[in-house]
């Protein structure tokens, strides 16, 4: 699924929740089922700065798509990571760069997620974008 399709689907999912408790129950559930993080990448190198809880992000390229492993010690953050993964994991660098990062806000998540949490997310988003940028510019320089 392309990032924009994923965002649309998330928007549909979130529209179903009438109160914050259901929304969080869902996010917590996502967090509990996040794909296990490869232990060899649980190092300082892959830690994301700017989060209250600890967050790790390991990006890598397979063919022409970008993939992410990610984890946190806080389950709500893991739930949010799971949401981000639906949008970004397996997309092309170009798709990632073309996706406006404010979908977190437009999803209505920002209402309930404190700015601090959002900052943690923002730091992760920034890392994802930086990585996509690096991949993309390598592709371009290789093809030119």
């Amino acid at each position, binding site marked *: 699924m392309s990032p924009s399709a994923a965002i649309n689907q998330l928007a549909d999912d979130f529209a179903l929740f009438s109160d*914050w*408790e259901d929304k*969080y*129950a869902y996010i*917590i559930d996502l967090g509990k089922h996040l794909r296990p993080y490869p232990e060899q990448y649980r190092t300082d190198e892959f830690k994301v700065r700017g989060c*209250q*809880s*600890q967050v790790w992000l390991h990006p890598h390229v397979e063919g022409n798509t970008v993939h992410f492993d990610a984890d946190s*010690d*806080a*389950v*709500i*953050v893991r739930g949010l990571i799971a949401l981000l993964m639906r949008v970004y994991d397996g997309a092309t660098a170009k798709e990632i760069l073309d996706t406006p990062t404010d979908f977190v806000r437009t999803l209505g998540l920002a*209402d*309930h*997620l*404190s700015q601090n*949490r959002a900052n943690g997310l923002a730091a992760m988003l920034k890392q994802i974008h930086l990585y996509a940028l690096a991949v993309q510019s390598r592709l371009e320089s290789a093809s030119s």
Partner: protein
Amino acid sequence: MTTTSTYDVHTVRAAFPILQRTVHGGKPLVYLDHAATAQKPQAVLDAIGHYYRTTNSNVHRGAHALSAEATAAFEDARAVIAGYVGAARNEEIVFTSGTTDGLNLLAATVLTSAQPGDEILLTEMEHHANIVPWQMVAQQRGLAIRVVPVRDDGTISVDDVASLLTERTKVFACAHVSNVLGTINPIAEWSALCQANGTRCIVDGAQAIQHCSVDVQALGCDAYVFSAHKLFGPTGFGVLWARYDFLDALPPYRGGGAMIDRVTFSGTTFNAIPMRFEAGTPHIEGAIGTAAAIRWLQEIDTTERIAHEDDLLRHTTAAMTAMDGLTILGTASHKVGIISFVVDGIHASDIGTLLDNMGIAIRAGHHCTQPLHQRFGIDASARASFALTSTREEADMFVEGLAKAIRMLR
């Protein structure tokens, strides 16, 4: 609430505009993050507004009426603060930008004649503000840092302090009250040990100042620092009290206007205390706002407000102790209304997020005390902290909210 029968928390609370607000779409704010920063009563806001609307001027300088009024209000604030902590003289009160600034000032000036190998003693429960400045000076001067351990209940053995004070210990820097454990340390006892040992006892009063009745003479320490923002005063302002002779012997810290006597390019002589340590235009509003906070606080019976906070602490602790898998960090018999805790298998940040959605503001993280958290084998904890404005209803909402958050997270 039989223990606090004459203390009317609702009247006290009504003085704080912010406590009337709601968050997250209409939920009443239950602010239990007073250890991070205190809220401000209307009297402080009025004093700030009044200062800027009628008196604002640079102090100690102008030859005009406004400057004279501002200087009088500023020095009156110094006297109010001196009186509040029991300083022997107004000159013992140095205005800083906060606890952190005060501790840095002391770390930079107290050890200028220390020799490599001399020691600085800290405790394991110190806030980073009372660790890092000492580490920085230790590194510069080749000094050693020693640490008094914290016991499982969040207290410190006086024997441990005694045995770690050596003939090389120049400074013992310790918190009056821990911002995580809530423990009230026996500073008078520790000061006596320091004095007998020829060690300077420097006390971080950041947390104590909001809850305890502080008398530097009774404490017997050499210096005591705190921040105004934790004493219902403005941000960006702090106080350093130090015993006259001790302070008077310290070299200057920051250079600039007001702290000098005479400046030439070939050399500069310095002003008397406290001006020597107050370079530049001071935080005049900060001093005046802090004096207003103290005057406001002095209208309230100290014994009753402390009893009220103690009631909240005991009531909440009892309820939390009954909760499954929950561990409170810091169970000293002598503590203030700060309750830090961890819950088995649940991250503090998740608890904080869910409580926040219920309108309940607590804090999650390491609370600037990573070494203390390491000592307990954890990265983070959740912390609820009360003030004199907190109510039993708020305590109960917190306990219920916590139970619900844990249910949601399990």
